[in-house]
Structure formats: C-alpha cells, structure tokens
C-alpha cells in the first residue's frame, strides 16, 4: 500500500465509516429505535470526519491529496486508489451533510409493511459509502465499478420503500444508468488499450490515463468521449435521457429523492469535470456545441415542465433538470469563472434543492401522502413556519440574490457569456421561468383560502386525477368538512432544516470558503484541458504550470 500526503487515514475513514455503519445498523434492525440512533450516530460521525478532512486539505497544495492506493488486480494494473481534490472534497462534505438530515427527516416516516427502519437506513449508509468512493476514486476501473455498484442500493431503496409505481421506477432507473455505465465501460477499456499501446502496459490510473489519452487523435477521442458522455449525461441527467429522473423522484421516499437529486446526479457533472475535459480536450472542444445545446434545451424544457407539473415530486425532478442544464452550460462554456460557478452550483443545488425536497416531503406527509398540488391550498394558515421554510427553499432555488444559488448561477451566466453568448442568453430565460414555477407552486399550496382534498375534507377540486399526476398515494379519508389536525414544524423538523437555511444564507453572503477550496481544482481542470479564459480578470488569473 502506498500513501501520499497527510490525512490518508481521514479519507479511509470517510470510506469505511458508512460501510461499518451500514453493517451495524442492519444488525440492529430488530429494534427500530437503536437502529435509528446508530444510523444517525454514524452519519454525524461521517460528517465530522468530512469537516476534519476539509480542515486538513490544502487548497494550494497538490491536486490530489490524502491519497492511498494498493493493488487489486495486478494482471490489469488495477488499483484500489482513492484521493480527493477540491471538487471531490466539497461533494463529500455535502454528502456528509445531507445524510444525517435525510435520516432525521425520515425518522418518523411510515415504511411499507414488512420493512424496517434499520434496513432503510443501512441502505442509505451503504449508498453514502459508495458515492464517497465514486467521488474519491482515482483509478478509472475502480470508478466504473463503484459507478455501477452504486445503483444497487439505490435500486432497492426505490423499489422496496417507494410509492405505488416503485417497481417501474426502480427498474427504469437501474436500466438507464446501467446502459450508460456499460457504454462507458467500452470507453474505459478503450482508454486502457490506448495506454497499453502507448506505454507498453495498460493502466487505469487516472493521472496517467489523462497524460496518455490527452494526446490521442481527435477521431479516437471523440469515440471515447461519447462513451463517457452518455453515461454522465444519463446520470446528470441531460435532456433527452432524463426521463428516468421524474419517475424515480416521484416514486422514491423523500429522503431517497434528496440523495438521488442531491448527490447521485452530481456524479454526472462531476464526471464531466474529472474525466471528460482533462482526458479528451480535443473532443470536448469539438463536441462542446452538442453539450451546450443539450444543456440549454434542459434549462428551457425543465423549466417549462416544472411550470406545468401537477405533482410536487415530479415538479422537483424537472426543477433539477433545469438546474443541471445550467451546470452543464457552465462546464462546457470553457471559462474558469463559469466552471467555478458550475462547481459551486453543484453544491448549492444539493443544499437548496435538497431542502426544497425535504420541505415538500413535510408538506406531503401532512397531506396524508398526496403529492398532487391540487390537493393543497392555503396551507400557510395552518402551518406558517412550514410555509416560511418552503419559501426560503424556493427562493434559493430561483436564485434570489442573497441566497447561495445566486452566487453560482450568476458566475455561470457571466462566465459563459464571452464564449457562448447565444446559449447564455437563452438560458437566462430559464431564470425567469424559475421565478414563475417556484412562486406559483408556493402560491397554490400555501396562499389563498384553505382548500384541497388533502387539507380539508372536500371533493378534489380538479375532478378525477389524470395520468400525469402519477404516484398519488392513498388519499386521506374524505370525511365531511372538518379541518384535520395539521401541525406546524416540530422540533425534529426544525433541527433538520436549520443547518440548510443557515447554509443558504451563509453561502449566499460569504461563499469564500467554498470558492477557495474549489478554485485551484477548477484551474487545474482548465489547464489539463488546455483551456484559456476568454476574458482575463484582474483579480484572478489562470496560471498553468
């Protein structure tokens, strides 16, 4: 085993802690309470370790830090090697933040018959371990392995604990991602063979592969690029391979939807940055227009469909699709400003959309499980606090200045303009839509007179539900007129949301810690891809070694 830099044990702990946690929690599943406490304990410990790891990280130091590596399959030069750079670090920290919150939010949820809390939380911890591994892997083979394995706990999380159409959603999710992964596998092998021709012996080491593939001719690069791109585009997801996300989000339990949108999808955009740009710079430049078109299409398409959604959970999925369009735009606009914007967008989207999903989950659990917008109305009268946090999460999602998302969206747009003015202008329209869909949703659910089947015992306003609503769980019994006992946020829910609100405002006003951590990695990515900034700013200049 070889290690380099300090704090390798921190990264090892980050990988092992959730794994051990998953094993412990599944062993304790007989007793709900102990299992839940153990899960929470492990996830909080993981978050603490993530913070320590961040404190040990030197932004100005080597690109990959806290690394360790040992042989796995010597015949193919496969290693188990992990390390973090600035982008991976902040993503791991966000995972560490979201998992305890998800566990807290799902503390009192009812699970389907025959399922235990212990089983549910242990799968979540397992998923956490695998996603941390995906972000930290520095061996491309290992990355692929974790990329595929990651699907299995998620498949069971959706399929075992989800809503009415969970089987369909779980299989669709799995097949989409698995197909993407397999196509990526072809490219992974292609890179390996290329390295074998070049160096005499194939390797999967990321840093070495970057050196080798980097110089391959354009035609080769394009094929290899496309293999990776399909996998990441499905994961991210970009239009037109996004269709699994609305189904998966709609059917997944709320906590799982947070992980799905907040973390798993980021693997796609992370892959753009870590694999596509440095490994295939020529192809990236050649195919950038393709990606930009898809990105902008995602922004507009996601926004339009979010506006038209009648189901809150599907609404969340389309909001995310629009946001992923922005992230992809920022990455493929090829300026350090836009790329920094995209990286921070990845984090801020996890925080803002994560919170939005959690809050919507709280709304839905108060409405007896219905996720139809039409079943709600005037809820602010019953639950003013809940209405307040929904508004905060919503405003952050529409990038109101002062919230965290504004910083990143602004950076993306301003940084993308010089290289891709037309795309940027079209994408800006998405911002207007964002205000429309968020505020309209808020208005329909929270404002006006108290109404809706889920809140008061009336007949549904819109008549029988139509197909698109989908995933409507059991409606509450429609006893006559009486208002149900719907309570405002309890202490646990406040505790879950408070850190997110703090971060939304905090990172909105003072984004420096995150920017400082990711900037060197973004610069390194720009340099590796041989990109130069279209406009040199006075404060920050891209300096390549």
């Amino acid at each position: 085993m070889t290690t380099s830099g300090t704090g390798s044990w921190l990264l090892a702990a980050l990988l092992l802690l959730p794994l051990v946690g998953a094993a412990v929690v599944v062993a304790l599943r007989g007793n709900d309470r102990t299992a839940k406490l153990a899960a929470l304990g492990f996830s909080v410990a993981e978050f603490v370790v993530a913070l320590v790891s961040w404190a040990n990280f030197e932004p100005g130091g080597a690109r990959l830090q806290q690394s360790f590596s040992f042989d796995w399959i010597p015949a193919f030069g496969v290693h188990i090697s992990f390390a973090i750079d600035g982008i991976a670090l902040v993503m791991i920290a966000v995972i560490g933040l979201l998992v305890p919150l998800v566990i807290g939010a799902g503390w009192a949820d009812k699970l389907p018959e025959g399922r235990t809390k212990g089983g549910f939380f242990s799968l979540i911890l397992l998923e956490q371990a695998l996603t941390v591994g995906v972000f930290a892997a520095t061996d491309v083979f290992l990355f692929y392995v974790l990329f595929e394995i990651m699907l299995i706990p998620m498949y069971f999380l959706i399929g075992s604990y989800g809503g009415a159409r969970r089987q369909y959603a779980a299989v669709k999710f799995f097949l989409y991602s698995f197909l993407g992964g397999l196509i990526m596998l072809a490219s992974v092998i292609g890179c390996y063979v290329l390295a074998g021709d070049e160096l005499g012996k194939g390797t999967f080491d990321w840093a070495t592969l970057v050196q080798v593939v980097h110089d391959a001719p354009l035609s080769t690069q394009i094929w290899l690029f496309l293999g990776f791109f399909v996998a990441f585009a499905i994961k991210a997801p970009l239009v037109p391979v996004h269709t699994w996300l609305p189904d998966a989000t709609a059917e997944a339990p709320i906590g799982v939807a947070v992980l799905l949108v907040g973390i798993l999808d980021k693997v796609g955009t992370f892959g753009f940055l870590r694999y596509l740009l440095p490994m295939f710079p020529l192809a990236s430049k050649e195919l950038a227009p393709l990606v930009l078109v898809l990105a902008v299409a995602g922004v507009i398409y996601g926004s339009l469909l979010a506006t038209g959604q009648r189901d809150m959970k599907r609404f969340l999925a389309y909001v995310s699709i629009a946001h992923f369009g922005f992230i992809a735009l920022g990455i493929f606009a090829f300026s350090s400003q836009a790329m920094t914007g995209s990286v921070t967008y990845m984090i801020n989207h996890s925080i803002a959309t994560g919170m939005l999903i959690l809050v919507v989950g709280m709304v839905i659990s108060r409405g007896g499980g219905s996720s139809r917008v039409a079943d709600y109305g005037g809820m602010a009268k019953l639950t003013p606090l809940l209405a307040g946090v929904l508004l905060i999460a919503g405003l952050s999602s529409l990038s109101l200045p002062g919230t965290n998302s504004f910083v990143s969206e602004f950076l993306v747009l301003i940084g993308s303009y010089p290289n891709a003015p037309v795309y940027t202008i079209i994408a800006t329209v998405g911002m207007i839509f964002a205000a429309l869909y968020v505020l309209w949703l808020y208005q329909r659910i929270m404002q006006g007179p108290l109404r809706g089947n889920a809140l008061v015992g009336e007949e549904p306003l819109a008549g029988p539900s139509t197909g698109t609503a989908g995933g409507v769980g059991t409606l509450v019994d429609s006893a006559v007129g009486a208002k149900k006992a719907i309570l405002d946020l309890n202490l646990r829910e406040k505790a879950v949301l408070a850190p997110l609100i703090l971060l939304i405002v905090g990172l909105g006003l003072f984004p420096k810690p995150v920017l400082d951590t990711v900037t060197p990695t973004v610069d390194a990515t720009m340099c590796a891809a041989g990109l130069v900034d279209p406009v040199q700013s006075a404060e920050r200049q891209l300096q390549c070694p």
Partner: protein
Amino acid sequence: MSVISSVLLLAQEQQPTAPAKVEAPPVGAIWPILIVLGAACVGVLFEAFLPRHQRWPAQVVLSLLTVVGAGIALVAYATDAPAAGELAMKGTLAVDRPALFLWGTLLALSLGAVLLIADRSVEPGGAFVASAAIRPGTVQDRAQVASTGMQTEVFPLTLFALGGMMIFCAANDLLTMFIALEVLSLPLYLMCGLARRRRLLSQEAAVKYFLLGAFASAFFLYGVALLYGYAGSVRLADISAAAAGTDRSDTLLFAGMGLLVVGLLFKASVGPFHTWTPDVYQGAPTPVTAFMAACTKVAAFGGILRVLQVAFQSTNWEWRGVLWGVAIVSMVIGAVLGLTQTDVKRMIAYSSVAHAGFLLIGSIALTEKGLSGTLFYLLTYGFTTLATFGVISLVRDASGEATHLSQWAGLAKRSPLVAAVFTFLLLALAGIPLTSGFVGKFVVFEAAIDDGMAPLVVVGLVASAVAAFFYLRVIVLMYFSEPAADGPTVTVPGAFTTAAITLGVLVTLLLGVAPAFALDWASGAVFAIR
C-alpha cells in the same frame, strides 16, 4: 449410430496405430482422463453387481472420489508440466496450458454438478426417475414419483460425459474430437430424459436434444470429411499448414470449416444454433441442466477455441466476418427472446445463448488475451450457472419445481436468504461489478477491443443492458411483489445441494473481488501447435 462406426473405420484407415494400440502414455498427462473414464466403467460394473440399495451410496462416493482424484492428478501434473504443452496418445491429445485450465474448470464444475445430482433431500429420492422404462402418466409412473428409488446409472453417465468433455478440449485432431463429441453427447441425451416429475417434458427434451444433436454431429462429420479432402489429414496442425500456403481449392476448406463450426456452435448453444437450448434446459432434471449448462459450454468453447486458433488462425480474414455476425445474432437472440420468457429455466437458457455470444467474441479475438479471457469467462460463467440452477431446484410446490416466474413473486419475504443468493447470482449473470460475471465480461471485451473489434463490443454491451432487464425482472418479483397465497415453498436444501450452491456463490464472489490468481492461471496460455 452407424455414423460412428463408419468414422471409427475411417479413423483406423487413416491412423492405423492410434486408437487400436494403446501405448504407455509418456507422462502423467492423461491420468485425469484415465481416472474419469476408468471410474465410469467401474460405475457401470457397480450397476451390474451391487444390490439396488447399495448402489446410490457406492456411486456417490465413487463419483466424488473420481472427480477429486482426477483433480489431484491434474494438479500434480500441472505443477511441473512443460510450459509449451506436450502431445499424448500418439499425438491425438494436446495437453497444453489451455487444456489443463479447461480440465481443471471441468473437474471443479462437475464436482458441484455431482453434488447436485446426488442430492436426495430436496426432492425425496432424488431428481431422477425410479425406473426410466415406465411410461409417463401411467399408474406405475404415479407410483414411482412417490417412491424413493432412482436410476443410479446417472452417475457413470455423468462420468462418461465428463471424460468426453475432457478429451474434447484436448483433442488434437478432428476425429478424436468427433469421438469425444459423441462420448460427451450420448450420456447427456439419456440424462435429459431421466426427470422424476414431468416425465413427458423430460422425454421430449431428450428426443429433441438427441435428434438435433445427431444432426449437428452429422454436420461436424461432413465438415471433417471435406477438410480431410482439403488437407489430406485430420490433424489440426496439418490443416493449418495446408491452409497457410497452397493453391488448393478454398471451397473445400471453407465449406468444411463452415460445417465443422456449425456442429461446434450447436453444442455451445450459440444462436442461431440454439433452438434446442430452452426446451432441453427446461425439460431436463435441474441437476442435469446445471451440469449441461456449465460443463458442456466449457467443453464446447474449449473445442471452438482450439479449432479456430490452431487450425484456422491463418485464414481468419476470410471467416472472421461471418463469426462476427453469428456473435451478434447470438447476443441479440439471447437478450431479446429472454425478455419474453415466463419460465425461469427457459430464461436462464436464453441468458446462456446471450453469454455464448459474449464468449464467441472472446473466441474470435485470436490473440493470447482473447484465449485467456475466454478461458476465464468460462470459469466464471460455469460456477455462476451451476449455483443458479442449484437455487432454482429449491423453489418447489406440490407438483415439483415451481419454475413459472409468477410463482417466484414475493420470495424474499418467505426466504430472504435464498432470494439474496439468487439476486447475487442474477447480478453476476448481468455482469455487475464485484461479481465474477463482470470481470469475465471485462477481460473478454478488453481482448476484443485490443484486437480491433470495438463495434462488436458495443453491441455486446447493449445486449448486456437489454439482458439485465430480465434478470432485474426476477429481482423485482422476488423483492417488490406480494407473494401469492398458494405460492411455492423453498425447500431447505440438504448438505449436497448446499455445498454445491455455496461453492458456486463463493467462487462467483471470489472471482469478482479478487480475480488476480485465476487470471494468472488463464493468462499466458497458448495452444501447442504440432
């Protein structure tokens, strides 16, 4: 089988000394084969001389000892075998690295298969008919279902088939290969018809397999005849030498090769020569299906690899395109028709057709990597399939095995362990990382891309994704569906079946997580061309 006798005549004409006069084998190279075939003969004598109630224990002990003993003999020889391999039996057998690897694989797999065949606790009395001569549906037939007797001839038959498979992988000339083909096939035809329950289905499977198999043998033999006409010899190396630089008619060569390869592809159940596979897999007693699916595949691909790499390497530009097409057809047929199946054994049968396509990709990558990759794939696929059929034999209702997919609904609620094991095996068949199935696919596809067959690999990957759907469907049924009220129960397996399933699952896991040692065994294998 007048065909065989005429072949034997032909063989004696051509090689008057070869089969008739057995010389002392120069080394211990062929001890494993001698042990297996010798024990098979002893098994037949057991049937003749032992009283009925002593046969089963005697046969089980004999078979297990044989497989283990042959394994020991193999290891003892392989530890200091010459790296380039050597010829035995007057040059009719080539005992080289690939042959040794395949023998080891076959012996390890048949250990599991014999354990499955020997089990008498899952189905009281064993999965085999008490007396094969009873007509299905008669009073006697109903009586034999309830009895605990079985036709213990299945054990020597298994050993004969195993011996044939071992010779098949090592055959250095086409006639030896043909005889080995018959030695391995004839016992299998019989074994297919020996199911205790659903006898009609079982007998239908046996007849179908026999008729189609005989057809394939005829193709093979005709191919041998044409190739003899072309090269003037049936030895693989001579054919290779003849094809390398002559002005002889290519028509004979390629017609002969085509017919020969059709016969081989049939045995390997490569689409479009797979039509027997679903029926036979479904009808045969499940332990026999496991044996067939695992070992026949290994033997058949062992033969295909040797024929393609030794005899036809030099002309590969002419025929590789055709086998590209065959591989694609096989993968597509396996993946797409697998989607429509409602019977779990038929589903695995179509999965085996898809896997045969993947294996063919490795086989036509005519490099060292292609060879070692295919060998490794065979090892992984064999163990996974063996354990898969082991698990299938456990899920039963009153009328025997419950193989209809709808009967598997909600299985995870009733027996979480069996469902978890089956899920793992299905994921291995789908090629999910950390299972041996993934490493197998990886090595084969890596070899193929290295040999410039990237488009074929992409087709293979897409087919894998399609095939993943039907594996997932079973997982969905087991985990996410409500169990049917009168659904099947899972039998608690006896020691034999437990051992076989455990063996398969452990190897699947081990080769998925730490495949390095087996890759080392498989790598560096080259055929002895003499």
